[in-house]
């Protein structure tokens, strides 16, 4: 059955004066594990062939063997730089399958935590790619800002990186008291660090020269290559799932979608910088509008009853038992739910056969089309631009290879 031809790694098809360069799998300028076989002519890239799969962890297969709610910790580790978005997206997809809607407070908190996650993701992306281009100070500034955001996640659910905060039909727990004040302080810290980074990078001659005009992808090519997210917006297409098909309560907030015009690395950087500010705007609005009430769906067929109730009420005890052992049971069917991940459209395609375990969980990874488009982006450029481009597409192995 294994029909595909083995890749010929021997260097024999190279023309006169060409050089094959192997970057990775473990390479200092590649955050994440990916192998890039580059063919060079002098310093110019003739072709590039990314090889991925070094972080394939069998996410989709594993999900078929656990209950719907047990998938949630695995979704954390898809895009581990913005785990709340994965959490919320998966829970939203299962809720769509069930045909239920969580309470308003839950939806606001999910938006809030998603935007906090988007900020951490963009901060990490900019910080890491700046570091790879030699701007180490920026990395420290932005990681400091990220620490402030991690602290918020830690307060909300007790984990910095892998929160597993969402549940089907609600959340693991409500926000702790005093969260709004902590968040306000954290957002202030992020803004300060961001302003520092902005002063160091945006008009920096070296940084500008490394990014401007490199890794260019036109709007048409980006659409044809299924590229979404900051890379597509940098190419001039204002596609953002939060605006195009609003989910949760994104239609209640006032925010802008930054769009670039050149589709190069510098525009991607600018789009990300602006998105951080917009995300903070959304998060602040969500905090200000945060309604009261419960965070969990009222039906015990969807979400676990409060623990105290299981000790005194037989219905709650039975619901707890059924949900823990069998899991929540959506009707047979299929849904696709897209959310705006930090790198683009993050889609969950779920197939249920009516039992407590998924028949199929498919993740539409935003990183995959981006990485597939990498050869087109670096072709014709200098070898040094590969590093800049790779930093700006922000490949995240967890979601790319799942």
């Amino acid at each position, binding site marked *: 059955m294994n029909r595909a031809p083995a890749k010929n790694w021997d260097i024999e098809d190279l023309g006169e004066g060409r050089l094959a360069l192997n970057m990775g799998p473990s390479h200092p300028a590649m955050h994440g594990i990916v192998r890039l076989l580059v063919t060079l002519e002098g310093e110019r890239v003739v072709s590039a062939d990314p090889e991925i799969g070094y972080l394939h962890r069998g996410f989709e297969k594993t999900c078929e063997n656990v209950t719907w709610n047990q998938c949630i910790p695995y979704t954390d580790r898809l895009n581990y730089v913005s785990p709340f978005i994965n959490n919320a997206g998966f829970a939203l997809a299962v809720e769509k399958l069930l045909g239920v809607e969580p309470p308003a407070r839950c939806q606001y908190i999910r938006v809030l935590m998603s935007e906090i996650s988007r900020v951490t993701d963009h901060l990490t992306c900019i910080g890491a790619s700046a570091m790879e281009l030699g701007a180490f100070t920026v990395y420290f500034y932005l990681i400091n800002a990220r620490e402030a955001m991690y602290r918020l996640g830690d307060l909300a659910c007790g984990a910095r990186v892998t929160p597993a905060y969402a549940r089907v039909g609600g959340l693991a727990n409500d926000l702790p008291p005093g969260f709004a004040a902590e968040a306000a302080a954290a957002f202030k810290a992020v803004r300060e660090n961001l302003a520092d980074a902005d002063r160091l990078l945006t008009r920096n001659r070296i940084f500008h020269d490394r990014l401007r005009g490199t890794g260019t992808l036109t709007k048409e090519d980006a659409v044809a290559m299924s590229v979404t997210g900051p890379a597509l917006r940098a190419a001039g297409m204002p596609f953002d799932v939060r605006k195009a098909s609003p989910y949760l309560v994104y239609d209640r907030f006032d925010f802008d979608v930054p769009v670039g015009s050149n589709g190069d690395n510098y525009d991607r950087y600018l789009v990300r910088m602006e998105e951080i500010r917009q995300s903070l705007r959304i998060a602040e609005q969500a905090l200000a509008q945060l309604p009261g009430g419960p965070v969990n769906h009222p039906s015990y067929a969807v979400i676990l009853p409060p623990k105290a109730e299981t000790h005194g009420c037989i219905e709650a005890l039975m619901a707890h038992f059924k949900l823990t052992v069998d899991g929540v049971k959506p009707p047979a*069917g299929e849904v696709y739910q897209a959310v705006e991940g930090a790198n683009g459209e993050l889609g969950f395609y779920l197939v249920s056969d009516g039992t407590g375990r998924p028949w199929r969980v498919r993740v539409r990874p935003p990183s995959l089309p981006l990485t597939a488009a990498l050869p087109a982006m670096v072709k014709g450029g200098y070898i040094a631009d590969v590093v800049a481009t790779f930093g700006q597409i922000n490949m995240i192995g967890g979601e790319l290879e799942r």
Partner: protein
Amino acid sequence: MTGTYLTDAVKERFPEDVLGTHAFRGDDTVVIRKEALPAVAAFLKDQLGFDMLMDLTAVDYLPREPRFELVCHLYSTGRNVRLRLKCPVPAGDASVASLTPLWPGAGWFEREAWDMFGLDFKGHPDLRRLLMYESFEGHPLRKDYPIDRHQPRRDDGAGRTDR
């Protein structure tokens, strides 16, 4: 129900090839015969403006026959609508026409579907494994592949088997 004009449009144009339509939870879905995939896909792209292939994957419905199902999620950037296109693929002839000529973005999705399910995409320019390694036998996301069956790699990571 919103959006069923889409499924109707496909049905009208390809009455013979559409096996069924539904809009479960608001996701417009068209199921077609796999032989008609290139024609329907071209119609959707050129006539209905679905310029973006959001996702392409497969599902294994073992023991049902036809066993596999190819699932594409299409998006129109101009009209902001989505459509799911599915076609059943029998286990005996697990092959289907490649969509890479229409949407270049399908290339890696199809490589992944080949890798994980063993679906052969006719006309794909470079159908290699994407996530697993060449010496891996079988296709892990098939329902008859045991989840805990490890296949330690016997080469040295550079493709040579000198270890």
